[in-house]
Each structure stands twice: as C-alpha cells, then as structure tokens.
C-alpha cells in the first residue's frame, strides 16, 4: 500500500495574535502528523506543538521570507494513544499580526521512527513567480510540500507535476496582510523530484517540503512458493505430473522494489547417512529456498517480479549457436507417498517374504524363448 497524505484540517485566525492556537483533532494511535503554521511575523519563535497534553511534536523546519513578510513553520508529531483532543501550537510570544493558519495532515504507510522522512528543503521570495524545490526521493516514496503566501485571495497554483491535497485562506477578504496555505504532493522517483507551483504575492511566499519514505522491508522477507499437486494423505501421483512454479513478490498497488535483492535458488537432493553409495530409487526431495536476502533500507514498494533465469554458463570457446533450450522439469518421481512418523520418513520398502519367485534374463546373443504353458 502506498503512502497516504491526509486531507489537511485547517484552523484559521484573523483576530487572535496568540501566542497559543488550538485545533480540535481526533487521531488514531500511531498516526504521523505533519503540521504547518503560517503567518507574517518572520521573527516569531514557535515553542511547541502538543496534542492532548501528551504527545509533543518536533520541529522540522521554518522558513521566514525576508523581514515581516511570510513565515512558515513545519513540525511533525507521532500520536501515542490516540483519541480526541486539542492540538496546541504555542509561540514564544504573541505574533503581533492576526492572520494565522494551522494545517495538519495525517501521513500513512510510511517508515517508522526517524526514517519516516528525509531532510526538508525550502524556498521563498517576495515576488510573483513560479518556484519549485527539488527533493531527493525513490520510487514508491512520496514528496510533500507546505506552501504559503501572503494574500489570501490571490492565486497560488500547483504546477502540472504537483497535486494539491488541500488549500485554505485565512479569510475570504482580499489583501496582502492575509495568508493562504496549501499542501502539495508528488509521487517520488529516483533520484529526486521537483514540487512547486506559481505564487502570486509580492508580500512573500514560502515553500517547505520533504520526502516521505516508504515502509522498508528489512532482513528476510517471505515469498510464498506454491508447488501443486494439491492434496494430502491418500492422493497418489501416478505417471507424469505437472508442478507449476510461480515466483513473485506478493503485493498490490504501489509496491515497488528499490535496490537490488538477491534470491538464491537452491535445488538439491537432501539425504542423510552414506549418501554417495546409497542409490536414490524413489522420491527425492528438492529443497527450494526463496527469500529476500539483505538488510538495511531495501524496500518493497510496487508490483515486483522475480525473474527466474536459466542459462547456459560458459566461457572460452564454448559457443551457443542456434536456438537452445533448457527444459525445467519438475515432477514427483515414482509413485507413492510415505509418511510413517518419527523417526521414520522416506521410502517404504516391500519385498516378497520368500524372495523373488522367478527371474529371467536375456543377455546379448541368444534370446530366450518361452513356450506357452501346457493346458
């Protein structure tokens, strides 16, 4: 499942100068929340973001554009127990200007811990222009950007590569003292993507964004391997059977494979005891082990495939001319299944209690001829 960026919930003010702003919110345990606060006091210091008196947010970045123009603060917060409560934004002092927007968005299906996002990137200016920020990313990741500008009714439009998740003005009134904010997003790609849009404010704009990292698969993964003939117990395999071998990464949606993985395919006859002189006369066992080897940040994030490559290895003067083929034959040898319980497993051997009754052999040379039995 891909990363989700929740529609922002906005709290606006055109009268309150703070230093405390409150937004009533309901969060679930484990939610990761991206928080943006925009206003026009470029010297203001945001002291804390706390949800329900319990969960304290962390500062990501703030970007004051020039002096006393546009100021954007981005914080993050991880919800512990969840529930309904107040998200309280506290500045060190009153802002001295009334137009404030608080935006909050719940981010889902991202990596845990501090690795859920990468370092922020920001830009800003005091002119009407298009601007982007370029953010390092990978396929399957997601890039978000909080944008704000002075001028609540002036346009602020995401570019063609950028999707607007939500937007809000501090007031419907026109005027450069007011504030407009938006949350933008774009699907990640390696090595980076640009996110941005057209700003329309000579009173200043700011854009702060960062990459969101997909949930990684670290260590060993599991690849279900289905080899049928389905059945158990008395199901007998007589004659040729067919074993469909399907290899793939289970998953759907936006799951992609980032980085190189290794899938060792080991096929062999397992055995114990005096292997070597002991002939294999019945069913053999082929242990097939498939797994994602590796550790660290290898992530699985889009439909992937595991190519099974069979080839003729060779070097030097060995040439392959014309079409060759490598038959892959998977079958159950012989007939019968055996499960006799510990410590017994493997073949059951049958012998006539008194040994062979008759045996005839025809070697090279003269053939043996048998006449019908007399009546």
């Amino acid at each position: 499942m891909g990363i989700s960026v929740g529609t922002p919930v906005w709290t606006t003010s055109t009268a309150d100068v703070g230093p405390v702003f409150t937004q009533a919110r309901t969060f679930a345990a484990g939610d990761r929340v991206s928080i943006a606060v925009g206003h026009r006091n470029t010297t203001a210091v945001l002291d804390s973001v706390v949800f329900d008196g319990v969960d304290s947010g962390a500062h990501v970045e703030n970007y004051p554009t020039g002096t006393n123009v546009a100021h954007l603060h981005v914080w993050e917060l991880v919800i512990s127990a969840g529930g309904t409560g107040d998200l309280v934004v506290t500045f060190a002092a009153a802002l001295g200007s009334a137009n404030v927007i608080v935006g909050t968005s719940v981010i889902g299906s991202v990596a845990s811990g501090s690795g859920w996002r990468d370092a922020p990137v920001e830009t800003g200016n005091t002119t009407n222009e298009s601007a982007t920020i370029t953010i390092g990313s990978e396929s399957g990741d997601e890039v978000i950007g909080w944008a704000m500008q002075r001028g609540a009714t002036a346009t602020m439009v995401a570019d063609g590569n950028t999707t607007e998740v939500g937007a809000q003005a501090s007031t419907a009134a026109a005027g450069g003292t007011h504030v407009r904010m938006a949350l933008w997003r774009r699907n990640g790609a390696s090595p980076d993507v640009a996110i941005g849009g057209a700003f329309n404010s000579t009173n200043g704009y700011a854009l702060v964004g960062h990459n969101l990292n997909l949930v990684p698969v670290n260590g060993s993964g599991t690849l279900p391997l289905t080899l049928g003939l389905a059945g158990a117990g008395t199901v007998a395999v007589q004659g040729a059977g067919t074993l469909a071998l399907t290899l793939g990464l289970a998953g759907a949606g936006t799951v992609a494979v980032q980085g190189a993985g290794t899938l060792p395919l080991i096929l062999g006859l397992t055995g114990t005891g005096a292997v070597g002189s002991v002939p294999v006369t019945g069913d053999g066992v082929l242990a097939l082990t498939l797994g994602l080897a590796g550790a660290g940040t290898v992530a699985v994030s889009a439909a992937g495939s595991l190519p099974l490559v069979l080839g003729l290895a060779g070097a030097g003067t060995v040439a392959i001319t014309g079409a060759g083929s490598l038959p892959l034959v998977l079958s159950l040898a012989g007939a019968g299944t055996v499960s006799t319980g510990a410590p017994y497993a493997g073949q059951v051997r049958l012998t006539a209690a008194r040994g062979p009754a008759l045996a005839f052999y025809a070697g090279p040379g003269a053939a043996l001829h048998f006449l019908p039995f007399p009546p």
Partner: protein
Amino acid sequence: MTTRSWAFTIDVAQDFTPNIDVERQSTTTGDYEAYSGITGVTMHLSATETGSAIDASLSQSASERSATPGRIHSTFDVADLQTYLTAYRNKTVWLVLAKTGELVGKSLACLVTRNG
C-alpha cells in the same frame, strides 16, 4: 539386456497367500527396519502396475503376522483366481498395496500360472 523377474507366481488352481515384508526407513540410523505394528494395508491384483483391481473380489485387507513384525499377508480365494485370472495365464499381473497416506501404488509383479 532384457530382464524380467516376479515376486510371486500365482497358481490359479490354488489359494494365493502372498507374504510381504514391509520395511520403513529410520531417520535416525538410515536403516530400513521392519514396519512393526503395520495396519490398514490393502492388497489387490491389477492388470497394470498401479492400476485398480481386476475385480472387487481380488481386493483384500492384509494383516500382520503375529510372529513376524512387518510381515503382512492376505489370501485370495482359488475360485476368484480361476474366474478372473485364467485369462492372464503366462502374463504379469500386479499385486498392488495401499495404505492411506503411506503406501500408494506400491506393487510387486506376479506371474500367473496354472500348475494344478
């Protein structure tokens, strides 16, 4: 080289009582050991190596010899043999053993004769 051997001959003029030693392999020693206490085995006579019984009367439940662990036996009646195996004289039929989950399609070749 062509070879053929039969585990049993079946004289259609007599009852046929095959005795078969069943061994299973120990994962501890790797040796085959008598399958002591074996139950639930059926035997039938088939025209093919792993086929079904030529006739339902040629299908029997086998039981273990009390004095010989792992040795099972069953008796096919002479009347049934005469009725259904006469057409197989001088030919090979198969004594197929089955035990749910353990023995499936294991068989021994038998030569049909008439000595009487």
